[in-house]
């Protein structure tokens, strides 16, 4: 049964609209809080990025020194070749067996193919490479390549996201000045900051 009059319906609509208006304000307030959090996180991110760049410089210096020493060492002709070659021939089967056992136990896939690949690899490797810890140097270079790739991709994504956020936070909605008597901005504490996520130097660069 319809239990209310038209007037009552109108009054109820007004009451309901007030509640919705309040909820819109809450959402807007929430955005303000999240924006502040994003700003704070971004400040921390920038500090971390500086530390990261410093660490990268140090790491690359050490890598260059390692590569230099490796080059110089490689320049020595025929160092202890015979002794090393004899030991290498005995090292290879043990290394292959140990590695295949590990692979079958831990990696659990395609042992046959890996076994052939490993044999070929050991036959082509030189004991001198082994003696110089060439594998560790190669691992370092591979890690460096991966780290650079990860950092590049991460920065690229972040640059795209922050570009959009910069544009978003420059919107009229966020940038109304509070002294404008005709407009009231719930974000009155946000003064116009044209480059919210980018420092100026970064834009210039």
């Amino acid at each position: 049964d319809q239990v209310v009059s038209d007037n009552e319906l109108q009054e109820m609509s007004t009451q309901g609209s007030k509640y919705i208006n309040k909820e819109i304000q809450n959402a807007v307030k929430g955005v303000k809080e999240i924006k502040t959090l994003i700003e704070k996180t971004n400040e921390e991110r920038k500090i971390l990025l500086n530390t990261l760049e410093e660490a990268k410089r140090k790491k690359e210096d050490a890598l260059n020194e390692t590569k230099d020493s490796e080059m110089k060492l490689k320049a020595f002709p025929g160092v202890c070749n015979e002794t090393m070659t004899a030991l290498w021939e005995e090292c290879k089967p043990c290394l292959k067996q140990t590695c295949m056992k590990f692979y079958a136990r831990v990696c659990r896939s395609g042992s046959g193919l890996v076994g052939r690949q490993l044999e070929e690899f050991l036959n082509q490797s030189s004991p001198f490479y082994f003696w110089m810890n060439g594998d560790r140097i190669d691992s370092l270079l591979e890690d460096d390549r991966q780290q650079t790739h990860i950092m590049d991709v991460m920065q690229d994504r972040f640059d795209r996201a922050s570009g959009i956020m910069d544009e978003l936070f420059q919107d009229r909605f966020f940038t109304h000045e509070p002294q404008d008597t005709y407009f009231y901005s719930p974000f009155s504490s946000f003064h116009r900051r044209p480059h919210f996520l980018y420092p100026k130097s970064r834009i210039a660069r």
Partner: protein
Amino acid sequence: SIMHFSPFGPPNFQDMFQPFFDMIHQAQQAMDVHFHSPAFQPPSMDITEGNDDRSVCREIRHNSTGCLRMKDQCDKCREILSVDCSANNPSQAQLRQELNDSLQIAEKLTQKYNELLQSYQWKMLNTSSLLEQLNEQFSWVSQLANLTQNEDQYYLRVSTVTSQTSDSDVPSRVTEVTVKLFDSDPITVVIPEDVSKDNPKFMETVAEKALKEYRKKNRE
């Protein structure tokens, strides 16, 4: 009140929120596509401990160099590493020592860099989740730009209020209220008997339920 936002009458959602939904969504996607990708695994640097099995498996599959990490388990392999060639050339021994020293430093610094990279990744993830929160909290309002085409001053309009017996096992009287929120299709909410329509909380409960439903539909 956001009613004061515009000097020319009720707020115009089109002007206020138009870019928000798309932009927040785009920003969030730009971050997420990468971080949620299974390919995004930071490299492991447990070179010295040799206990990162997954990384060793990957290296073995990739080019077999992972196997060389097991050299310590074979006597003859260990002997190669301790071959002393200094009798042939003393400066060569010194050079080898330098190489080993710089290698150790480089490994340590690479490990340190990796740890920082992971912290940086966490920071990015934090930003990404804040964008997600922003989207969650705000998208329903920002979508109003697309959903409100008329200039009705009511955000919520009640069309019918009926009283009837509920369908549950224990029959009781309930009030069914049909409302329209913005430009939505009619939404019907059911209010239990104990919240009478004369109760000041009645419309708040109706609006709350209707908004909840509206947000749910928007998310879908």
